[in-house]
């Protein structure tokens, strides 16, 4: 490749991206402000644009039939995992709801179970509390078997199911009081009910019958009920289903706030935008099997170990010469511009200067941070699990894969 006159190129990071490249060059982590209404939260490839072909990668994705899950090291929760599922399976009639599902939930983090409808997320939640005993495999919640020790596990869990599971003929206060008594909250139940209602913004509606609540209010009430007994583990099964974008945003904000109270959160979703802003740890599930799990940062590092830069020019064809620059390990051009995988972002100014010196009128230089959406579709595509729809930002399915 043509030298761009850069200093000695830094060593190429390993595929695990475990830190051989300078920290400053690592793409920013996913954790950040919650996405604005999901339609605009995550950058997506415009429809009709040819997907960017894959950069080279030697990270293998385990297909659903594999027995050993790919589990990336997580950078959250150094203590023992709160939940451990190992080879868990369950069958409803002839259908496998879970098939050798294995994952761990780190303490004090938000773990997102991500997968399309029918992937087995809800069944996994049920297995965690012992509401449903798996037919095979091992579940440990707080180190206990929830099937045998459910009486010790369930009081330490708070669950919000996809349908809020509230009693419409009771008031909000009575719904909370019922939960408080079942969970043995004790003498300060009334005070806790008030505090939880205030925290979730439903204090004014507390004495109304729940049948008259809006969907958003029901979700808030269900969230309030889930934390009433101060559980260690919160399990949220698609808590934003049926909510408008603003209510979804508010609910996700509340969920993210949970970890600051010391809760461990497990949330199921099929919405990439939700997981994008929220997840400390991701478990991708498909057909009852975990495809991959780990923190978003680690997972994207594994798939895209090197920084990626998007370039565009008045005449994009002239950008092709960038493929030969030192430090460029991958290059693809499509109608949206050219994407370069480089070993060090510090090379980019020299690359641009060189292109300009060669008469290329550069119109865009933009570092590309791989999104969860990129990751999701790449993993699905590489694992060969088909093209079942999952809601990408804007509601469009992305069966075509992301960056790779």
């Amino acid at each position: 490749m043509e030298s761009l006159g850069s200093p000695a190129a830094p060593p190429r990071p390993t595929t695990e991206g475990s830190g051989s490249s300078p920290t400053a060059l690592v793409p920013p982590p996913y954790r950040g402000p919650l996405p604005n209404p999901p339609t605009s939260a995550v950058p997506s490839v415009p429809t009709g644009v040819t997907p960017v072909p894959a950069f080279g990668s030697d990270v293998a994705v385990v297909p659903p039939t594999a027995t050993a899950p790919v589990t990336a090291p997580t950078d959250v929760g150094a203590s023992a995992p709160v939940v451990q599922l190992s080879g868990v399976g369950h069958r409803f009639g002839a259908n496998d709801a879970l098939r050798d599902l294995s994952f761990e939930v780190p303490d004090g983090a938000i773990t997102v179970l991500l997968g399309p409808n029918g992937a087995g997320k809800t069944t996994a939640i049920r297995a965690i509390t012992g509401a449903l005993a798996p037919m095979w495999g091992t579940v440990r919640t707080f180190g206990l078997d929830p099937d045998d020790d459910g009486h010790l596990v369930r009081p330490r869990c708070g669950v919000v199911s996809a349908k809020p599971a509230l009693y419409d003929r009771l008031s909000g206060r009575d719904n909370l009081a019922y939960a408080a008594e079942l969970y043995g909250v004790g003498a300060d139940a009334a005070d806790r009910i008030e505090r939880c209602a205030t925290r979730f913004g439903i204090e004014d509606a507390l004495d109304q019958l729940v049948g008259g609540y809006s969907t958003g209010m029901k979700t808030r009430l269900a969230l309030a009920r889930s934390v009433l007994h101060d559980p260690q583990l919160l399990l949220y099964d698609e808590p934003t289903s049926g909510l408008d974008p603003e209510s979804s945003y508010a609910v996700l904000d509340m969920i993210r706030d949970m970890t600051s109270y010391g809760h461990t959160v497990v949330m199921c979703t099929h919405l990439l935008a939700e997981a994008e802003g929220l997840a400390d740890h991701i478990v991708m599930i498909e057909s009852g099997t975990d495809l991959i799990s780990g923190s978003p940062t680690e997972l994207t590092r594994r798939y895209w170990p090197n920084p990626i830069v998007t370039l565009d020019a008045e005449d994009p064809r002239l950008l092709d010469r960038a493929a030969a620059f030192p430090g460029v390990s991958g290059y693809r051009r499509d109608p949206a511009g050219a994407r370069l995988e480089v070993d060090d972002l510090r090379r980019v100014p020299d690359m641009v200067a060189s292109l300009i010196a060669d008469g290329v009128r550069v119109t865009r230089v933009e570092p590309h941070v791989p999104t969860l959406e990129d990751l999701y579709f790449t993993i699905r595509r590489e694992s060969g699990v088909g093209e079942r729809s999952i809601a990408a930002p804007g509601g469009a399915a992305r069966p075509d894969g992301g960056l790779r």
Partner: protein
Amino acid sequence: MTTIEFEDRNPAGATGPQRSARHSRRTRAARDFDRHRMWVVARTDLRQLVQSKDYWIPMVALGSLFFFVIPTILLLTITRIGDINVVQQASQALKILPAQAQAQIQGSSPQGRTAFALAVYLFAPVAVVVPLTISTAVGAATLVGERERGTGEFLAHSPASVREIYLGKLFASFVPGYMTTLVGFGMYSLVVNLVVGPDVGGWFFPTSQWWVLMLWIIPPFLLLTLSLVLRLSARVRSTAAAQQASGLITLPMIGIAYSQSTGTLLGGSPNTGWILGAIAWVVAAISLHTGVRSVTRARLLGVAQ
């Protein structure tokens, strides 16, 4: 030297593992049952019933009809009727009663004797039909209703054990029917004494057989019926199906309860009612005990196979 003699705690010769298994079962049963939580489940169900006018208004109407309206009209018709022939025909019909029952009929006039016999012997079905109908209606919907509303998910994830849920639901189904019956029984007693009492020499109701019927025989029959209805409610897929299927159980149970209660009222021996009730309690207890198994968390979730 002091010798310490250990008490033989295993006189029956049970082996260690057997004792351990029994102990484990007892321990598990104990930890699976918290009376307070059972009461919380029952109370919440009852509170929802109270909130639901579309349920309790028909319940009150049914009780009023059977315990107040129909008896009042019939007894007033008998005691205040002018046509002596009609009364005499009714009085003749009472001769089909067993001799011992006929001997207990009070009153000097044909109207009084006829009204006494109607009040004491022929309204027994009322005491059976009302509680069974009301409680069955509640019980049939109770578990499948949780599943249909999605609240079964909440209960399945809650610390409440299936035993607490089952017994809480059973209690919540039992109370409306039985309470209506007791209140109706009080009203019925008042009506009978006010309408028939003057013709038979004063207040005479409830008789001792009626006390046995209401307090000793009806409750176990009601519990037995509910234990069967709750099994259905746990298994079927919809409330409508539960209501339909519960009819298959309730109708024979009404027949059995009616025949047995009539036998108690008409039977000769004063011990008949006590014995019958005792048997009913034993059967009900067995049915309740085994009925707990019908409730599982998977059924609350609606995913049982």
